[in-house]
């Protein structure tokens, strides 16, 4: 089978933009193509994001391809949420193999600033659980994470201080990330005295909804071999879902346990032959501090993971910002930088395998993506 590798990545800094999604994406495509060392004539396939109702330009992928004068053979759209991102990555490799394309670009953008948080809750998250039996009560991902956090505290499995420590660590790590929204550290006291948003979650335990965009370019083996020390291999995915959507069918199960996460990492390790000790860096999809504690527990890491593991060196959504449908690009970008040895002050030395954990909390699904260098060596600071 033709080997496929990630050869380029580009993101814009998390922020609040008046530039529309198209503009941000086009800048990312150029950045990713330069990073990859591919010509635009080689990008023959495109996977874009399905635009939100608030996005001005629909059929956005082919619109942008046209604006960039890309000679594409194939174009499609995915909803680039946690699951959609992972599907897009696999589909891009399939496009390259099936059609023998030199390179495929995957891109997306999210401008959360165009929809106020309360409106977002009303028009979007109230309908992603159960639109009639859960949504009308004001249920949002933030509140179901709060429900799990409360139960975890009551069971003696975590404390509010544990959750505050997650925010402190992520904000500290974001200081050195040029693409992060927050570049100032916070103390545990500041986190614990910030205003309550959904008890026991406080404001500084929650991600800022930001605007952002990203693009990665995957390429055929011959293209990847031009710069083998910079190309990144995507290993077979681990995936699991509990077949449950948020609440009704979870009777008797703690809200804070995430069986799909445990099964997904087992699946990933079974498919790759790797184990916990092989993974040097992790970027989990964590919009709320208690979620990190829950996910790392479900992944099988010890309670002290924050001191011993390299988790979210980019700052994660809490430190770097949360442009929802572009989040995966920032996680991938960080892991690519880490594996290449190009992460600057954030660099973890000797990384051979890096892992993105795309879990969906109480939506009860998880996909694990493991990456390594194309040349099979370990990362060294460059």
């Amino acid at each position: 089978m033709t080997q496929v590798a990630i050869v380029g990545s580009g993101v814009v800094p998390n922020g609040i933009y008046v530039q529309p999604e198209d503009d941000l994406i086009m800048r990312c495509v150029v950045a990713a193509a330069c990073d990859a060392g591919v010509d635009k004539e080689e990008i023959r396939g495109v996977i874009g994001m399905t635009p939100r109702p608030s996005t001005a330009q629909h059929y956005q992928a082919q619109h942008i391809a046209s604006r960039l004068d890309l000679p594409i053979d194939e174009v499609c759209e995915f909803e680039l949420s946690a699951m959609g991102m992972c599907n897009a990555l696999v589909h891009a490799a399939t496009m390259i193999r099936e059609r023998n394309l030199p390179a495929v670009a995957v891109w997306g953008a999210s401008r959360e600033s165009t929809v106020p948080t309360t409106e977002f809750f009303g028009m979007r998250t109230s309908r992603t659980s159960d639109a009639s039996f859960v949504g009308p009560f004001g249920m949002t991902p933030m509140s179901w994470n709060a429900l799990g956090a409360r139960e975890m505290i009551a069971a003696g499995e975590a404390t509010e201080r544990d959750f505050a420590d997650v925010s402190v660590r992520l904000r500290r790590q974001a200081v050195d990330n040029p693409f992060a929204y927050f570049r100032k550290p916070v103390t545990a006291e500041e986190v614990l005295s910030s205003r309550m948003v959904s008890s026991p979650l406080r404001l500084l335990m929650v991600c800022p909804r930001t605007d952002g965009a990203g693009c990665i370019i995957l390429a055929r083996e011959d293209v990847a071999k031009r710069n083998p020390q910079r190309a990144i291999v995507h290993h077979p995915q681990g995936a699991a879902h509990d077949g449950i959507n948020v609440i009704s069918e979870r009777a008797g199960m703690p809200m804070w346990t995430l069986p799909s996460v445990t099964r997904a990492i087992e699946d990933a390790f079974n498919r790759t032959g790797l184990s916990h000790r092989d993974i040097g860096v992790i970027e989990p999809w964590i919009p709320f501090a208690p979620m990190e504690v829950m996910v790392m527990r479900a992944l099988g890491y010890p309670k002290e993971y924050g001191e011993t593991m390299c988790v979210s060196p980019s700052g994660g959504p809490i430190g770097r910002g949360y442009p929802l449908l572009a989040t995966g690009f920032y996680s991938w970008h960080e892991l690519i930088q880490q594996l290449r040895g190009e992460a600057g002050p954030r660099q973890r030395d000797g990384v051979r395998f890096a892992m993105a954990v795309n879990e969906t909390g109480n939506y009860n699904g998880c996909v694990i993506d493991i990456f390594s260098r194309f040349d099979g060596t370990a990362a060294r600071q460059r």
Partner: protein
Amino acid sequence: MILHIPTHDQLEAVADAVRSRETEARARYEIHKFHWGTGAPFFSEATSAFWEAIRSGRFMLNRCSACRHVHFPPRVVCPKCWQEDTAEPVETPGLGKLVTFTELHVVSPALKELTPIRMAVVDLEEGVRILTWLRGPGAEGTAVGDPCRIVVETVLDRPWFVAHRVE
């Protein structure tokens, strides 16, 4: 599951059955729309009877007439045996245990008047999980594990099922 390849006549019968249900569904939809509007709770053939019961002050679960499985919320296919249209409303005392709760300060504009919202997850004795508002006397002093009861109460000019703490 046993493989069943339908004949053409059987497919015609299935199509006719769905079409004939649609006539009844349209009538129910008009009633639902009159009382609840076109927003949440959204109309479904399976849930319209539930919301009618809520309007009359009763919180009901559903039981499959084929396999006796009790489930919530109502749906057109039993989640256990996959029989269609076998859900029967069944009375419940609505008793259960408070699994967890949160006080939510950031809400959609439609719920702003209720802020902060006390949201609860309750596991009923029948083995179903309910998410709802925690209201009534003693709601502010509740703790995980407290006994609760699901009752019907008017909130924002509409009847809803909510949880009350019980002694």
